[in-house]
């Protein structure tokens, strides 16, 4: 694979919280313009992987490169949608102000929204169909609206790679489908998308490749029987393969249930 084609490269990544190793020797590459879904059971280290890639938490060992550079050098090209629980409910922002937070790359300055930033914010919100929420307090928005506001916040700076941590959790089915169609559209425009999701069924309809994580990377590829056995091993329970060769449904209850 040509170096110029690689959007994300993770090499022998180790992360630990104190004595507890959370990620162990994780290595994978994502080509530019690809849509990769990351799955894994609870506590597998999926969110930790994102945080390590983005420099939010320190890594014990290993290397992360985005577009062939250290992450700090390309932050303006990276969009990030964290899990919704990360936002502080004590801060009274309008949805427009929340989206504008995606443009704050330097700590100084007073104004959150100015003329030029307002245009960008409105454009990003229009992409998600939430332009009418511009002056609505974020805290009063519905869960689905909040989720779309956070996606708009990541898109407002026109990133070239987008990391999404369960962006469709707690949203209704039509919203989920709309989000996936938007991501597919962005991928069509050349954006690289890396997304964590629990919904393997929907994810499998849109992604180009899938990675299964359970402390270490147990599978990375396009799906099929190999993925099925990797997932069975990662989730410690049998899975059924339905659509597009991707595992869709857990057939049996866990042994310990």
């Amino acid at each position, binding site marked *: 694979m040509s170096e110029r084609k690689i959007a994300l490269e993770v090499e022998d990544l180790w992360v630990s919280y104190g004595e507890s190793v959370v990620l162990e020797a994780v290595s994978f590459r994502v080509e530019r313009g690809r849509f990769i879904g990351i799955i894994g059971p609870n506590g597998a280290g999926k969110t930790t992987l994102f945080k390590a890639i983005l*420099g939010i938490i320190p890594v014990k060992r290993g290397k992360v490169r985005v577009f062939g550079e250290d992450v700090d050098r390309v932050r303006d090209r990276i969009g*990030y949608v964290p899990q919704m629980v990360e*936002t502080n409910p004590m*801060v009274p922002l309008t949805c427009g102000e929340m989206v504008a937070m995606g443009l704050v790359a*330097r*700590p100084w300055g007073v104004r959150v929204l100015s003329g030029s930033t307002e245009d960008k914010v409105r454009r990003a919100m229009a992409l998600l169909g939430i332009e009418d929420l511009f002056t609505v307090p974020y805290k009063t928005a519905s869960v689905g609206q909040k989720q779309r506001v956070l996606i708009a916040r990541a898109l407002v700076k026109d990133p070239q790679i987008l990391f999404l941590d369960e962006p469709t959790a707690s949203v209704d089915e039509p919203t989920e489908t709309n989000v996936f169609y938007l991501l597919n559209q962005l991928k069509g425009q050349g954006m690289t998308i890396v997304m964590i999701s629990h919904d393997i069924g929907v994810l499998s309809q849109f992604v180009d490749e899938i990675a299964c994580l359970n402390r270490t990377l147990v599978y990375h590829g396009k799906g099929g029987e190999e993925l099925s056995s990797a997932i069975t091993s990662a989730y410690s329970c049998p899975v059924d393969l339905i659509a597009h060769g991707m595992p869709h449904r857990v057939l049996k209850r866990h042994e310990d249930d």
Partner: protein
Amino acid sequence: MIEIPLDWSGLGLVKNAFLSLLGGALVSALVGPFMFMRRLGFVSAGISHALLGVIGVALLFGLPLSAVLVPATVVLGLFMGMLERRSRSGAPEVAVALTWTVGMAIGITALRQVKGYVPDAMSYLFGNAFLLSGSDVLFAWGLSLSASLAVLLFFRGLLACAVDEEFAVSQGLPARGLYYLLLVIISLAVLSLVKSLGVILMIAMLLVPPAIGERKSRGILGMFLWTLGINLFTVCVGLWLALRMDLPVSVAITFVLAGLYILL
């Protein structure tokens, strides 16, 4: 401390109290919302209470308060912040409470040991805005302006970290540095209010108005404007009440704030 006369009329002491509280209203309107949004009320109360220890030790050893207080309070603030940071990752929050109470215990012990004239410990605990000299007012305004300027300079970064610190880091913002900067700013704000409102009651002035502002406003600007408005109203009404009812200003202000919190 060098005495600078600032009483331009027969009501000099009232004017000093008003001017000092006006500076307090300004700095509280800028710093208080960040304390509230980042849930640093406990840490800030810890800083203000432990400040009594610094005051007591300075008086006991005859150190000039004006020279000692600023660096000591800043160090205290950073220390409290470090403890709070650690408590997030599992260390007991009791460390902050312990520093707070030990600071007060040291202060009370030290003030009891000081020979000769000692300022009444009660005036540090509850403040006495009517006994402020001109130099006290200038000292408080210097601190208020420094803290306010720092907030205005780094407003966007401080806000981004208040909304979602991890997202701020992903954007390349120095979240840890901004957190400690906020602690320094809070320390300066606390110090600017210590003589007028006292270490115990000042926390109401810093936390109650932004709590009301958060409830009342639709956006971030609204929260800061509400906080400023409530602060100015509270200072005026609190001062009037204190004069009318012969109450300590800090007590009157606390009553006004409690009333507003319930009513609004």
